[in-house]
């Protein structure tokens, strides 16, 4: 429980590096798919459907004869785009809400927290299903459905972290100097909780990838001709007996991406999240009389 004084806290752990590497590769693939894929991911070739991997189709083809590798690449694009916008939506609304709640306290704080409770009381997926039933399936609505549930997460994390900062002496000093609460929130609170927020965003991003896959798997996410990993899984399910490859590959893509983001998130947490030292992880020196 003693950390070596030599331990350099400013470096990412090996697992964090691996996670960062995976995330970068997935992101790179998604970007690459914008300009180049081995084949047009939507081009059908029904005569060559369910083809085994070959030189022309390194990962084979699906039931319409579309190139699986190209589809996986294009799927990365959709998964990332949907998740990114959803998390952006959640953070864009949740962070100001959390800052506001922490700055104002009182009834506003109470209202924000109750709204959070309400959001948590609903099984998120159920609401997403209802929402897409209401608005119709599609990428935009999947973003909305996922984003809505990211708002309370960010609001809660922001509020908690901000409250801790508000108690710090330098904030009190800024208050005494006559700075407004909004100014302080933007100038002092936000930079101090940015680390926690980046970590949270990474984790939420991974969650959003999973959620998008789940919605698409249920047929509620992005629609053809857009390709998404979840929908590839859905379509592959009836081919389980014929060609399990189609069900295994998109799932692996999801797992690898989420794994990479989670590893990156954990690595960043070790480095950026100050709360780590407060709880959850070993407290340095708690046993030893301040060596």
């Amino acid at each position, binding site marked *: 429980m003693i950390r070596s004084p030599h331990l350099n806290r400013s470096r990412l752990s090996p697992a964090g590096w691996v996670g960062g590497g995976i995330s970068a590769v997935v992101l790179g693939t998604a970007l690459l798919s914008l300009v180049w894929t081995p084949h047009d991911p939507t081009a*059908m070739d029904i005569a060559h459907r369910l083809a085994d991997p070959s030189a022309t189709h390194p990962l084979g083809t699906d*039931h*319409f004869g579309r190139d699986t590798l190209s589809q996986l690449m294009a799927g990365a694009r959709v998964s990332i785009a949907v998740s990114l916008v959803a998390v952006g939506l959640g953070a864009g609304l949740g962070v100001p809400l959390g800052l506001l709640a922490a700055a104002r306290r009182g009834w506003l704080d109470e209202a924000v927290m109750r709204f959070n409770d309400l959001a948590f009381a609903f099984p998120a997926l159920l609401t997403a299903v209802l929402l897409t039933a209401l608005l*119709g*399936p599609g990428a935009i609505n999947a973003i909305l459905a996922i984003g809505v549930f990211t708002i309370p997460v960010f609001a809660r994390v922001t509020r908690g972290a901000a409250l801790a900062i508000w108690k710090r002496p330098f904030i009190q000093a800024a208050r005494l100097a006559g700075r407004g609460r909004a100014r302080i929130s933007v100038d002092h609170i936000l930079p101090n909780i940015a680390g926690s927020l980046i970590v949270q965003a990474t984790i939420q991003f991974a969650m959003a990838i999973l959620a998008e896959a789940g919605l698409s798997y249920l047929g509620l996410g992005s*629609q053809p*001709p857009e390709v998404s990993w979840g929908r590839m899984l859905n379509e592959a399910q*009836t081919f*389980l*007996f014929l060609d399990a490859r189609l069900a295994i590959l998109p799932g692996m893509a999801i797992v690898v991406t989420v794994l990479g983001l989670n590893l990156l998130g954990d690595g960043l947490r070790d480095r950026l999240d100050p709360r780590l030292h407060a709880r959850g992880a070993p407290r340095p020196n708690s046993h030893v009389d301040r060596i």
Partner: protein
Amino acid sequence: MPLSFARGPARAVAAFPVLAAVLAAAISSWPLTARAAPPDSLVMGMVLEPPHLDPTAGAAGAIDEVVYANVFEGLTRIGPDGAVRPGLAERWNVSDDGLTYTFRLREGVTFHDGSAFTAEDAVFTLDRARADASVNAQKGLFEAIDTVAAPDPYTLVVHLSRPQGRFLFNLGWGDAVMVAPESADTNKTAPVGTGPFRLTRWVQGDRVELEAYPDYWGEAPALTRATFRFIADPAAALAGIMAGDVDAFANFPAPEGLIALETDPRFSVVIGTTEGETILALNHRNPPLDDVRVRRAIGHAIDRQALIDGAMFGHGTPIGSHFAPHHPAYVDLTGLSPYDPEAAKALLAEAGITPGALSLRLHLPPPSYARRSGEIIAAQLAAVGIQTEIIPVEWAQWLEQVFRGHDFDMTIVAHTEPLDIDVYARDGYYFGYKNPTFNGLIATLDETTDPVKRAELYRQAQTRLAEDAVNGFLFQLPKQGVWDARLHGLWHNSPVQANDLTGVSWSE
């Protein structure tokens, strides 16, 4: 100094997963591969679950698939060949003017509650179906009826207000089955009919169980028990029949699953016909779909064979008009709209549409034939310069938005009612086709009883639709029957949506 965790408890905590594994192993040793049912019973898989079991109060085909000819019977019945046969009416006379039908009813018929079936019940049934408060989904079937009377317990006289060529056929529909006044209101959950099987249990969401009705008037069926299991997921359906949990699928939900089953000697795979014309319906109200050249261009853009291969794994018959290929009056009109992208582009240019400028919405209901065909058609239309936005919808939304709201450009749907070419004459029907010549053909047809003349009229009607390129005519939906090779007597074709179990038996 030992700083490691002591060994003992580590072993103790490690024992938990071991326990779980042992438990799993114990459970997995249960016999699972045993056949689901003894030889006098049958487990039939169905894709959709009926919302309720009263065929006179709902349109869902799944209702008929469970109860038609099994639980409920009509005055006439449709046989496996699609022909009208006697049902609860032993025989009948039609007056020369075609307006009066006199039915002689079978004696000794009882409902499952033991009460006798008489002409009074028949009068009640027909009057209920055409009453103002009727919730019969096919109320139109009874439109021509003027009066219904029961001069004696086994005679029924029906007067029509106008001659109707299909009246006896209409009476064979599930919506026209005979019900008793005492039980009519509760048939949804506790169906009481006159058929060879009666309901024993309905586990909502899972299965309906039937057993043989001992006092059945006709020949007793070979099966004593029958279970309909509802398996919506194609993968689960395939797993179910492979594992022997299900003995038969009258219509297997996933054509790709048949590939594995066809080569397996344990199963019979029988590709039969249905009444389902699958069409790419076009909304004539929305320009430029009112332009016959654009509609023809769409017809030329579609490669039916690719569609059948891609969406149906080769099962299905291409059609060129709205008519079932197995019907005697069928004309093959696919030659009028062959796959010809160049012709399609030329027609579009002629109609003044620049490539890429036309964007159409394509509403797709849930069945996989529609969703998959939609994806392929979108790709095929893109090849001739028509953009497509795919909008998947649930049935409820399809009915409200597409069918009734007419808020669509294109949609894919299979019209599964038999001989339903007359819908093209309906005013305000969802695709909005208007052609007085065609309407005249249908009006004549409705009043014609002579089979030869009717066939000729059907031919003319088909040709008319094909020439007008009313819709994109895609393919006839196949009936993809799969069952245990030892089963006999299941219908190969489906002239009506029914799983008639009266003649089903096991060899052995």
